[in-house]
């Protein structure tokens, strides 16, 4: 429930910040920047200002949109590739399984952040690159989970029954097996959003993430870290936003797992 609360908090503020705040999250304000920049929290700037004199409160919550979008898009990307690959490997077995599993092993053999850095560095920084890099890194996790579930399910009586009734592969896979494998995938996807936000922030932190100037937590943390001796607030608040949102997704994912997995309910 705490996880759901945190997620709702970020989502609500991200959704309303656009019209609630008098400040622009991206435009550098006109006026005396030397006086405006890196100001501490005050009544006009609740969390202070960043290196370009922009309101931090507006940026931190506007960045929730960007970071949540990145988290969701990366997970969707991983899922769209991972689900069919895993399903095919688990259902058909044999060569299909060998091929997919070995390819996944290759992907898994790279430390995930290194693989993401390699992809991002070769393509140039940008939002699309981040989604692609972090998305690809997440594919094996989903594919393996789906494959494992499908492997167990395809031997179940209701599948044998369906097959005996003359159902084709498509029908069995999509209407009989996958709906029953969805529970763990939903949990994994929820946890995946948190991991993706963290990894995307990592890429931005080292300068390979989103476009310079974008309100995105990792990039804001990087800029804040640079200025920490002049003002600790930008680094503190963007770091806090990353921690809390990832914590939110993780708690929510754990909660979902407990709710969806009958065995864990029984134990309690």
């Amino acid at each position: 429930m705490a996880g759901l609360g945190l997620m709702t908090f970020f989502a609500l503020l991200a959704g309303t910040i656009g019209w609630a705040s008098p400040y622009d999250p991206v435009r550098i304000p006109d006026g005396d920047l030397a006086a405006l920049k890196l100001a501490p929290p005050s009544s006009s700037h609740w969390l202070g200002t960043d290196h370009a004199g922009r309101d931090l409160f507006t940026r931190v919550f506007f960045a929730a949109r960007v970071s949540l979008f990145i988290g969701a898009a990366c997970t969707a990307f991983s899922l769209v590739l991972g689900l069919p690959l895993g399903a095919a490997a688990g259902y058909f077995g044999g060569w299909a399984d060998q091929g997919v599993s070995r390819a996944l092993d290759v992907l898994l053999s790279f430390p995930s952040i290194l693989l993401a850095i390699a992809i991002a560095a070769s393509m140039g920084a940008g939002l699309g690159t981040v989604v692609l890099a972090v998305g690809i890194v997440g594919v094996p996790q989903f594919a393996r989970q789906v494959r494992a579930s499908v492997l167990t399910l395809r031997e179940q009586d209701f599948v044998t029954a369906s097959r005996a009734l003359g159902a084709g592969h498509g029908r069995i896979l999509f209407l009989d097996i996958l709906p029953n494998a969805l529970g763990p995938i939903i949990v994994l996807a929820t946890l995946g959003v948190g991991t993706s936000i963290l990894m995307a922030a990592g890429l931005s932190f080292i300068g390979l993430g989103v476009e310079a100037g974008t309100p995105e937590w990792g990039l804001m943390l990087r800029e804040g870290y640079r200025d920490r001796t002049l003002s600790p607030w930008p680094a503190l608040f963007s770091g806090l936003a990353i921690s809390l949102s990832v914590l939110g997704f993780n708690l929510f994912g754990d909660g979902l797992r407990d709710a969806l997995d009958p065995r864990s309910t029984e134990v309690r």
Partner: protein
Amino acid sequence: MTWKALLLAAAALAGAAPAQAGKALIWARGADSTTMDPAEVEWGEDAKITQNVFEPLVSFRHDSVELEGRLATAWTVSADGMSMTVDLRDGVTFHDGTPFNAEAVVFTFNRLTDAKHPQRPRVAPYASNFSDLSKVEAVGPRRVLFTLKTSSAVFLHNLTLFGACIVSPEAVKKHGEKFALNPSGTGPYRLARWDRDVRIVLDRFDGYWGPKPAVGRVIVVPVNSPQTAIEKLKKGEVHVVDHPTLADAKPLQEHAATKMDFETSMNVCYLGFNLKKAPYNNPDFRRAVSLAIDRKALNAVAYYDLAEPASNVVPPAIWRDTAPTPAYEYDPAKARELLARAGLASHKVELIHMTFSRPYVPEPQRVAETIKDQLEKIGLEVRLTGYDKAAYTLKTREESHPMYLQGWSADLPVPDNFLYPLLHGDNAGDLNGSFFNDAEFNAAVKAAQSERDPGKARSLYTKAYERYRAELPTIPLVHVKQLIALSKRVDYNMHPIEYRFFIATLRE
């Protein structure tokens, strides 16, 4: 033997223990040297050491980039500009005890330029600066004659380069390839010890011909992270940090134990346009971009107010007495008009930038984001793409790149060192990423290279500048000040070009 071993151990301790810091000046920098052979020097970290162990014939005055004799006492250039006679300083000895004379000068330059020389260095990155040198010969024990292939206005300046530092022929012959580990020059400091990636210990050379350094021992330590180095500085574990970040300047100025020294800029950061690609090839577009750039805001957002707004690609300290260059106009309203007239209002454009720090762009992302912001305020839609070092170098040399961020630090404090590599047609597609190839500009720059009359050279540079300013192949943004962090116990004034340990003093 035992007392020698004891001395060595004591020397090692002096380097390791902060308690002994009072005796030696401890200088922290970003990385260790790779070589101590001046002919092999390619980057600043190597040069920092060789500039104190070796000496060139000609060097800079203590407070400017004006030339003065170091191992040379006088020089005369022939009427046709094809040869130069140099008189050498008397009573100078190398660290190995051998005397400095005309033979040593001839040996040094032959070793640098002759690919078949028996003591040829392993690499010679700056040898190409001497490709116009035809012959160097001793015409007396203290007199050398340089003969050139073409008349060159920058030859005297080339003599200040790292590679032109005079080496002891005996030491080179004795150590061979190991000379890079056993340097022997005429400088105020001699190498006492080099523990790779740990420390370099330099001791005062008692036989030095000039004023002796105030500090008897300098220990140079590599501390990769500026943050770590600064913490050490605050605690008194080191006395100098030569690579502070711009963000550190203010806190260090306010700290009780530390201070900062600033020096005029020898670099430029500029915005370039690919003149082979639309809309960047449209002069009205480039004029509009130029009018949209607010250098004051850029300085505040991206340079911690430690840069000077640029009105020329050549820094003012190098442009010196050449006709002054007026500031670029900032007028967003006029920029919008120009864009509208060119049919480019709300056009989509791209700006590529590096993601790695350089002296002229310590925060490339911030420069890019500020320029994007300023261009979007005149209605353009700007996409930014950042690249790491290898990818960026390739990218800016392709013909397909858009607007780009680039910069340059002077090798030599002469206008040609900026105008020729960055803007001359000869270098289009290389360092000249805009593909600027203007006949008038090219001719003026080329003519200035061999023009020895300073007045005429200045008017040629002014002509080149006017073409540059009119065509806007690149727009200079800022010149970034050089900075160094010091303990309050140290007195040291930065030189615009060199790191001179020998002028530092250290109080107890």
